[in-house]
């Protein structure tokens, strides 16, 4: 029952979220709960997602998880993190990939799958709505802070 209630709430919130996407989304960067890193700066987050670094500040190898296609959350994430449209971010990647030196992030189709992946992968890092946090994950950086 409680589970249903929560599910309903999530649906509601999702609806709300979809509704308020244009305005404000409370996106957070998360890692597995078992990851020793507990807090990251904006730059550290950028460096990991834009391919500069492939490790956490403590030296553990990191795997950034991204979403495919042009999803609202993704658009919002990049807009807020690096101030670029997805088109520009893609252009960047296409240029960087050409040199073959940087490995782009792992792509998952949806936020749900991202959460599932993140739950079991201690060295992954991804972004999601704060309301979708699970107990297996922890916030290392909040975009609207």
């Amino acid at each position, binding site marked *: 029952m409680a589970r249903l209630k929560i599910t309903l709430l999530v649906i509601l919130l999702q609806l709300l979220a979809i509704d308020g996407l244009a305005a404000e989304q409370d996106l957070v960067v998360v890692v597995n709960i078992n990851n020793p890193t507990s807090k990251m700066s904006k730059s550290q987050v950028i460096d990991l997602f834009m391919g500069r670094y492939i490790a956490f500040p403590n030296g553990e190898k990191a795997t950034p998880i991204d979403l495919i296609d042009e999803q609202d959350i993704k658009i919002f994430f990049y807009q807020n993190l690096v101030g670029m449209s997805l088109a520009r971010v893609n252009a960047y990647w296409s240029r960087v990939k050409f040199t073959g*030196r940087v490995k782009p992030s792992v792509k998952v189709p949806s936020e749900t799958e991202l959460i599932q992946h993140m739950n079991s992968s201690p060295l992954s890092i991804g972004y999601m709505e704060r309301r979708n946090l699970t107990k297996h994950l922890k916030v290392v950086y909040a975009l609207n802070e």
Partner: protein
Amino acid sequence: MRSMNKSGLLIRLAVVMVFSSLAVGFISSQLFYRLTYLGEVDKSKKQISELYKTVSATASIAAYLSDHELAKEVVVGLATNGVVQGAIMEFGDEVVSTDMEGKENIIQFDLHSPFEQGRIVGHLSMIPDPAYIQLRAKEIGLDNAKALIAQASAATLIAIIIIYLMITQPMIYISKSLHKTTPGTSKRLIIPEFHQNSELGDLVVDINNLLSNTQQQLAAEQTLRDDLELLEKRFRMIFESSQSPIILMEPRGSILLYNHAFTKLLDKINTDIKKNFGALLGELFKEPETLLKNVRLAFANDEISTGEYQIVSSLDEKPIWVHVVASSIISEDMKEYYQLTLHDISKRKKELDKLNIRANYDQMTQLLNRHAGEKNIQKLIYEKQEFVVILMDLNGFKEINDKYGHDCGDEILINVANILKYSVRHDDFSCRWGGDEFVIILTGVDKEAIRIIVKKMLLKINEPYFLSAHKQEVSVGASIGAAFHPKDSTEMLGLVQMADKAMYHTKQSRASGKALDLTFADEVDD
């Protein structure tokens, strides 16, 4: 040609102008080059900034991702640009650079993170290529220099042409005309066209004025010279044609000037011309001491000396006498000269001598006349000499004169006179006292000597004389009286009277038959 003279105005001007325009061109090209170079350096900086802007996105990504390959691509790409000699990218610990020679004038730019403005992820440095900048500056500078040289050449050429037409050509014309003009003639220079009011025109006017002045001056000088020549000619004529020798000499006797008459005089006395005949021509005079004395005395008194002196000559029968006029001349430079003029007075002297003879001698007998006899006696008295006055009167003369005429009487008188002339010594003399009376003066003789002399004389007088006109022999005698000076008298009249008395006594003795020849005055009783 004169106009092509190496040091001619046009050539000099052209050389100066070409050299100065070259110098100005050279200096301004250098200046231009310097400015161009600095401009080019600025330009290259700007270009490099542009380059940075162009590559900054890629470079930022490369630095951000520490992408060595990409960075290499960027720097190599930059280095292909001419203005960039080399490029360096630094990010993290990495340095990516191209090959380069130096690191001067390095220009550094910050490389920002492509995602976070203000986050520096590395540096991009570029080194401008000095050779490239220089080359460009040189190219521009060379173009400028070419333009300047062309401009300067054109300006020089135009200036030379203008100067040639405006100044040099008229100057050469003036110079040539002046060269052909002889000063003193009436020829004048013509003012070149279009220079009526220019400095060259003034120059020609001045030259013409100068030529006029010169002509006048030369004419005046010529007149003066002609006058002087004429004067000199006349002076020379006076000097040369003078019959009297004129000599200009130094006080010590060196002859400076003499005329033709002087050489004629020397010819006459067979003497060659010399530079010096001693002071006042002393060697030529018989008594130079007298001349010198007289002249010095006159000069000492600032007077002209005049006097008559005899010239030394080998021909003693023709004595040469000159009237000497000597004057001292002080020249402008305070030198003293003597001028001597010798007037020949030989002829006059001879005539004077003749006159003297006529005055003192008896024309017929050529014995001294009574007047001269008296003068001589007076002189002997004045000199206090001892002498004797012998008075002689002919006997029988009156009869011959009456019988045969005056001519025969004169013959007798001349005969007696000749006897008397040869009977007395050189220093003694005899004279015709009058009629048939004669006087003989003897010095330094005593009575005995007189007696001998008288005896000799009478012997000759008594000798018969052949009158050729009448073919008849006649004879005369003589009565003689003598008086001594100063024993008998110290006066002429007294002496003559006493001699006359003594002579009368002799004459008386004939009548008394004693027939004396000679009576001395002291033997006569009063």
